[in-house]
Every structure is written in C-alpha cells, then in structure tokens.
C-alpha cells in the first residue's frame, strides 16, 4: 500500500468518488483514514450515500416496468423504414405528377380522352394512402388536431376549395391527424381517424375531381382486407377506407357522405375572420 505522504491531499472529488465507490484501493484507504479523523466529513458522506440509495429506490419502479410496445426496437425500425419509404414515395409522386402533366398535355393535343390507368379501380390511391398512414405512429403528422373543423380549415386552405371533414364521432371515430399528398389531380388530403377506445384506423381521403360528374357511393375492395367507399360530388372526390367489413364501413361512409353534403359547419366563419386561420403544423 502506498504511504500517505505519496497521496495528494483529500479533495471534495475524493469524497464524491468515495460515495460512488470509484476510488482505487490506495486512495480508498487514504480517504477512509481521513474520514475516521473527520467525523463531520464522514457524516456528510454518509448522508450523500443515503440520499443516493433513496433516489435509487424511489426510481426503481420505473426501470422494472415492462417496456411499452411502441419502444420496441423492431417496432421503431419498421416505423422509420415506413417514413423513409413515404418520403421516397412523396418524391416519386412529385416526379410522376410532372410526367403526368407533360403526358396529359401531349395526350390532350392528340385528342385522346381515356382514363390514365384503365385497369385500376377509381380512387385506388385512397387505399394506398390509407395503407401508408394507418400504420404510422402518431408523431410525424403534418397536422395534429382534435377537431374535424380544424382539419377542414387546414385542408380548405391547402386544396384551395372548401373542404368538409366529416365529424365521425357519432360513428365512433375521432380524427387523429391530417396529411397532404400529391395526386394527379392536385393536392389531396387524408385525415386519419381512430376508433374511440380501439385502434382501428379509418381514413377520409379527398382530392379535386373537377372533370368527374357527381356519383353516389360505390365500394372497392383492395388487397390486405382494405375496403374503400368512394363518391364524387362534381367538384371533389371522396373516399373512406378501413380494414373493416363492408357493412360496417358502409354505415360510416354514409355518415361521412351526409356530413359532406350538409356543407361546412357553423364556426368556419369565425375562424377565417380571425385572420390566424393558418395551419398548425407540427414539425418533428
């Protein structure tokens, strides 16, 4: 063992390191000797250790809780992949939009009037959007709202035409967040809903459809068990998508169509008048 005279004088850091049991053997012996001679310092050190133990036991319960599912690494990794894929998809969609625009111009000149993709059912993109957003965690939403009217204001501004976001609370679904997507017809909006007290996701998709005549509700099945009900009102195209049985989704879709037909709700004017009707965009 080292002689005391070889040791530098005791400092506050030695006392802390003593509490944390981070002293090497030689230093530890030195500090012990010091504490034996200085009861006041010894009392402080004892108090520090007791305090540390109290903290540890007060916080122990948190570390022994089971890990919530959403923090599982596999789950997080899947979420990240999805987000990256969505970004990629967004970029691809933008490119597609340009190509479609160019192609449409070229086709219009040639006088060809047929639909762009004759074999895809109408509004198939609504199911694609649902698939992407229904699996996503809540956080990277473009707009988080608790209220269908807030989302309606936001989409009205983004789509530059009055948009009604149906209040589906009576049907058991509450709005989670809204997303803006490119569509070949201009910006489209998706509002994700979540079943109250459950985790079934349902999406309401809306996009411009100026050339399409009004058409009542129709149904389309998509791979993965998703069902879409869609309709047009001569101005916009709408779709309600969820992985639900047809009969069940039909009820919700009818309710949504009724809401949309009824038009904007009362408080839209007060909000617009406030001037600060700007979207509440949550980044991150």
């Amino acid at each position, binding site marked *: 063992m080292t002689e*005391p*005279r070889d*040791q530098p*004088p*005791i*400092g*506050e*850091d030695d*006392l*802390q*390191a003593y*509490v*944390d049991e*981070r002293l090497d053997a030689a230093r530890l012996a030195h500090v012990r000797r*010091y504490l034996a001679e*200085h009861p*006041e*310092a010894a009392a*402080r050190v004892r*108090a*520090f250790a007791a*305090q*540390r133990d*109290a*903290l*540890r036991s*007060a*916080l122990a*319960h*948190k*570390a*022994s*809780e089971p*890990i*919530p599912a*959403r*923090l*599982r*690494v*596999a789950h*997080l*990794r899947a*979420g*990240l992949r999805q987000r990256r894929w969505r970004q990629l998809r967004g970029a691809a969609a933008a490119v597609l939009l340009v190509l479609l625009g160019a192609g449409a111009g070229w086709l219009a000149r040639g006088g060809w009037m047929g639909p762009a993709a004759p074999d895809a059912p109408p509004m198939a993109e609504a199911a694609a959007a649902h698939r992407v957003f229904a699996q996503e*965690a809540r*956080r990277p939403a473009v707009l*988080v*709202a*608790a*209220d269908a009217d*807030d989302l309606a204001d936001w989409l009205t501004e983004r789509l530059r035409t009055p948009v009604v976001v149906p209040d589906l609370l009576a049907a058991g679904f509450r709005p989670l967040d809204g997303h803006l997507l490119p569509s070949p017809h201009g910006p489209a909006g998706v509002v994700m809903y979540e079943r109250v007290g459950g985790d079934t996701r349902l999406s309401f998709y809306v996009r411009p459809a100026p050339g399409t005549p009004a058409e009542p509700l129709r149904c389309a099945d998509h791979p993965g068990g998703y069902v879409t009900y869609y309709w047009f009102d001569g101005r916009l195209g709408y779709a309600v998508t969820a992985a639900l049985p047809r009969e069940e989704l039909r009820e919700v879709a009818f309710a949504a169509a009724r809401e949309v037909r009824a038009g904007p709700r009362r408080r839209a004017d007060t909000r617009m008048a406030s001037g600060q009707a700007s979207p*509440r965009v*949550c980044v*991150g």
Partner: protein
Amino acid sequence: MGGTPDAHAEPLPKDRMLTDRDARIEAAIPALRRFAWSLLRDPHAADDLVQDCLERALGRWRLRRRDGDLRAWLFAILYHAHVSGRRREARRARLLGEFAGLAEQATAAHAPDSAVQCAEVLQHLDSLPEEQRATLLLVGVEGLGYEETARVLGVPVGTVMSRLSRGRERLRRLTEGGGEPAAPVPLRVVR
C-alpha cells in the same frame, strides 16, 4: 429473441447483426425510461423522449463510436433530445393548447404519479437546477462513470464533479430540513 442457439451453420449475418443490435439497445431501455421519467416526471412525455432518442440512435447507428459505451451514447442522445426538445416543446404546447379537445389529455399528463408522492427525495430533487439533477441521476442512479457523464452532458469532468458536489450538498440540506449552511469543505492537507 436473443438467446436462440445457432441451429444453422450460416445464419444471415445482417439479421444476426440486427438482432444483436436490437437486444443491446433494448437492454438499455429500462434505464433510459427511468432517466427520462426522472427528468420530465410525466410518463407519456418521458416515453416520447425515449422514443425520440431511440429513433435518433437507430438513424445514426453508424456514427456511433465503436469504443464508446453504448449506454452512455444512448443517454447522450436522450439528454440532447431533451434539451433541444424543450424549445420545440414550448411551441408544441402552445399549438396543442389551442385545440380544445386536448384539454383532457393535458390534465392526464399533469396528474402526478402516485409513486412520486411517497418519495420525498424526488420532490427535493425537483428543486435542484436541471443540470445538477441530470448529473446526480446519471452518476448516482444510472451508475455512469464521471467521464461518461461528462460526455453525456457535454461538459468537462471537473464540471461534473462540482455539479455533483453542489447538488448533493443542496439535497442534503433540503433533506435534513434546515437552512443549515453548507459545511465548509475540509481541504486540510494531511501530512
């Protein structure tokens, strides 16, 4: 997951690496949750912070220092997310506050955990400045070394030591229930 014996002579290396990585990260999650909760004292916000931390960690896994301790690295990411998130948090609270429907969520989040109330030491801990609090927690509860703690907090080791000393002293005075002045640090030279 984790302890499955190698049935195949040639397992997919990528899968193996991912599983191993996941297991190592997940081993740190309970401590990360505890640290986040100690800082925020709100279970939802704490888990949001941990999620944020883990997503960042997965995103920059390749930037991790090979020789460094994984736990310390994760704690550092979490702490930085916490510090940089506070500004954003204030903005978000303002934004969300405008939505009437979130009122219930807000009250639920602010309700104190029942476990907190019995722990007087946590109340005292709350009254410490944040950087002292984080230091005390990392060293005393999470068991990080002084150098690791310094790296997590982005300060020199000397700063960790003085925060530790001041924080513990303050906590001691609070616990002993007095305005008793700080005991002068005996620095007598032993000869």
